[in-house]
């Protein structure tokens, strides 16, 4: 029997915090507890991902509900002394709002946590994901026992249908409908698959769910098995998620031991077996049919959809495939009822959605919000706004390589499937990359095309060659080789790729280009016609110039320049030697007085007066693409 302890220090054991040094902090915390003689009343527990990844390693102390961030082993003695012995929050490590001095010790008052509504992540940071007892304490497997003893499969399907839950993997297909189809079809064998092959750049929702609450995923899968009368499940996780694989395996083993998996679950005679299949990390294997082929041991390529997977999927048997987050929602829905779930979010998009908030934002991390929450609330209230003070919000990229970039005017739309789609992006699996105004949108589109071209399986022509051709065109534009008509080619080709590609990867691959073309067309035109990257990201299309009127001669850029291209005496305006300049933008990032201007590449050889004139235009905001005429006439 374990003895009860006075206080639990829930140290985040998610991948992010682990990388920031959780293990060392844990060791020193335990050491300190021993030294002070409180190791019998205070206990350190490695929890799953807490969500506040930006400030890792983080820790929440219960029952005090105090939150600590950025914990270093050397801070531990002070922390233990103050919090655990004297019983007052240790101010040094408490959360402080960006650029404010006041610390907020209570986890419930921190804006990042305050505005969230936790359903899928309700156990994050509260339980030890490696102990089934912890999960059971939090009402774990209660939904399963209810479903197995009191509900018929049809009733379970009905609850899921009524809840309005839609697939959280990206497409938003109604989960109840999928299950209904799976239940209707009769077969000697049916399979349940959990899709944990999360691969969007900047997305880590599924990983965190699997790491912080593996039992919720497993319970959701068994419930799906009960509802569709299938007896075998696979969890497909990419091998790049070793911690998720480890914790899921521990959880599965515990379930077999406790009679929650196997031939006689909870003594009801229902049989369900579960197995982890580790994917080799191909993005396309997140596509349902490619995933199934991968489990079959074949090359992971999508198959044409002659049949739905619910009719003929894995090993040609009916297969019900759901995303990690979708499945983790199920126990809650069964337990609290469809009405409760519907009360969150909107009519078409019920419930909550987990987003991975990354990019140029203060509070990088994992957030769960009802689907009627606006982008502004997520980015500015929860996310804490843009990191750099002098930078402004430019766009948010939603849905990874299949999604698009949404500009500022859409900040007040809710994150529902419909509203986001209308704006030109998709909810997708929930990656949310925030970009400030130092981001070049052409380069961003190029980044995503590089990703899709690289991850295309190579089966169908439009995706295999089309994405590569688009990437090459964007590359040319960024290198200053763009020609008039390139934009039209990109648009025309995108249309054909969307229409002709075999699977979702190709059908959505042009989205990043189309959405940036829709909202940031002028930037493309400036790249092509003016040979000018106004953000200075594309080094071949920018000239850096110090405006003498604004330069205070502080020397910051001079010290930062890697090639000593900046020269000048202290307190006197500096100059950039164009011969030496690498166009790395370091000086521009460093300057506090906005005195460095980014001009077109052609300005490198232009005369002094002309550059001055251009710089003035840039300051006034009146420069840029003007139809067919270039800004610099002399070139």
């Amino acid at each position, binding site marked *: 029997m374990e003895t009860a302890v006075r206080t639990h220090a829930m140290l985040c054991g998610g991948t992010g915090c682990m990388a920031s040094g959780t293990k060392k902090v844990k060791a020193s915390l335990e050491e300190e507890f021993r030294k002070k003689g409180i190791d019998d009343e205070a206990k350190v527990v490695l929890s799953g991902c807490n969500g506040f990844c930006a400030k890792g390693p983080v820790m929440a102390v219960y029952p005090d509900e105090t939150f600590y961030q950025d914990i270093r082993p050397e801070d531990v003695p002070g922390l233990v002394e103050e919090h655990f012995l004297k019983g007052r929050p240790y101010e040094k490590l408490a959360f402080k709002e960006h650029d404010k001095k006041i610390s907020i010790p209570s986890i419930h008052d921190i804006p990042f946590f305050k505005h969230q509504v936790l359903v899928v992540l309700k156990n994050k940071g509260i339980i030890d994901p490696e102990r089934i007892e912890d999960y059971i304490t939090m009402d774990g497997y209660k939904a399963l026992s209810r479903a197995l003893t009191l509900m018929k499969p049809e009733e379970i399907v009905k609850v899921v249908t009524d809840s309005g839950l839609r697939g959280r993997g990206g497409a938003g297909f109604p989960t109840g409908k999928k299950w209904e189809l799976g239940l209707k079809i009769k077969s000697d064998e049916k399979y349940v698959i959990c899709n944990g092959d999360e691969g969007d750049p900047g997305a880590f929702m599924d990983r965190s769910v699997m790491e912080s609450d593996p039992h919720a995923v497993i319970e959701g899968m068994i419930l799906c098995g009960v509802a569709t009368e299938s007896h075998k499940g696979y969890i497909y996780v990419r091998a790049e998620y070793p911690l998720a694989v480890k914790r899921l395996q521990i959880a599965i083993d515990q379930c077999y031991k406790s009679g929650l998996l196997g031939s006689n679950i909870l003594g009801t005679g229902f049989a369900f077996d579960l197995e982890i299949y580790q994917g080799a990390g191909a993005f396309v294997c997140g596509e349902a049919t490619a995933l199934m082929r991968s489990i079959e041991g074949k090359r992971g390529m999508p198959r*044409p959809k002659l049949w739905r997977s619910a009719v003929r999927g894995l090993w040609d048997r009916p297969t019900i495939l759901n995303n990690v987050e979708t499945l983790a929602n199920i126990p809650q829905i069964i337990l609290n009822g469809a009405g409760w779930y519907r009360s969150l979010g909107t009519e078409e998009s019920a419930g909550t959605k987990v987003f991975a908030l990354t990019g140029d934002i203060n509070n990088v991390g994992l957030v769960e919000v009802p689907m009627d929450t606006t982008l502004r609330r997520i980015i500015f209230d929860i996310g804490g706004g843009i990191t750099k003070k002098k930078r402004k919000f430019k766009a948010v990229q939603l849905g990874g390589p299949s999604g698009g970039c949404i500009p500022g005017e859409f900040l007040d739309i809710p994150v529902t499937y419909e509203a986001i789609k209308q704006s030109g992006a998709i909810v997708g699996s929930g990656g949310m990359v925030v970009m400030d105004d130092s981001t070049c949108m052409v380069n961003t589109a190029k980044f995503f095309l590089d990703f899709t071209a690289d991850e295309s399986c190579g089966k169908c022509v439009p995706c295999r060659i089309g994405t590569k051709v688009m990437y*090459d065109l964007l590359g040319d534009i960024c290198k200053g080789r763009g020609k008039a008509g390139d934009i039209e080619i990109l648009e*025309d080709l995108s249309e054909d790729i969307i229409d002709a590609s075999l699977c979702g990867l190709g059908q959505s691959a042009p989205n990043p280009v189309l959405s940036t073309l829709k909202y940031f067309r002028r930037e493309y035109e400036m790249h092509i016609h003016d040979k000018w990257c106004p953000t200075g990201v594309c080094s071949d299309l920018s000239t850096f110039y110090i405006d003498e009127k604004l330069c205070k001669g502080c020397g910051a850029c001079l010290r930062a320049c890697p090639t000593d291209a900046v020269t000048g005496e202290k307190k006197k305006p500096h100059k950039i030697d164009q011969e030496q300049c690498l166009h790395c933008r370091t000086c521009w990032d460093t300057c506090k007085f906005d005195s460095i201007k980014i001009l077109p590449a052609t300005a490198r050889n232009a005369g002094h007066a002309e550059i001055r004139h251009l710089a003035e235009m840039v300051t006034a905001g009146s420069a840029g693409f003007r139809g067919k005429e270039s800004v610099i006439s002399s070139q």
Partner: protein
Amino acid sequence: MVKLKINGKKISTKKGSTILEAALDNGINIPRLCHDKRLAPYGGCRLCIVEIEGRRKPEASCATFATDGLNIWTDTPKVRKIRQTVLELMLVHHPLDCPVCDKAGECNIQDLAYEYGNPRTRFIAEKNHALPDTKGPLVELNSSRCILCGKCVRICAEHQGKGALGLIGRGFPTVVQPAFGEALECDYCGQCIDVCPTGALMSKTHKFEARSWSLEEKDTVCPFCGCGCTLTLGSMEGKILRSRGKEDSGKGERRQWSKPGEPMQQGKVWY
């Protein structure tokens, strides 16, 4: 039977057949490169795309079942445009070395480019210049001409049960190769050469022997063993220069193991 309309023409086909099969059975041609009736639908080349009334997007006819009441159009401007783009994309890397390619004259991609092709590409061409793989004794693999329709890989695995070829890598740099890039050592049935729509897989012994149009072809029975497969021999000036299995030729129903157009093994290459 399923009743549907293709290009305004009322046709009927047996249940469970695809739109492409229904069209071909009724004499309506749809361009295609990765389809073979002996193989499972693949849906890779996207040339057989057709428009179905009431559907949001065009569909690949080789991978869509023909169902009652469908109204299908196989040659609309939209479909033609997609085919043109797809061919244009294929020609981004496919070398135009037709003058020195033994496939010229009976090359599917050449014929399609003739019908749909745009002589000037809008894209940045990146021609493949990989040297042909001549390691194997009888089959030459010219990966730079390959358009990755996967027919050779599938006929070898699905049909011959051999699996001597595979798709290696992913995305644009994918290539068809024997395992570990070693020499192709198999039964040399030659099916891969016969199904290849371009000149990517060619008989080494026939290389630079004759242009396809100067060969006189005759169907005969293979004398190698007792199976009696139909062979199509190509000769020039009284000399046999090539043997191949022609689609739909021969009286295959006589024996189970020698289906039409499928000569077995060695007979083909040891003429």
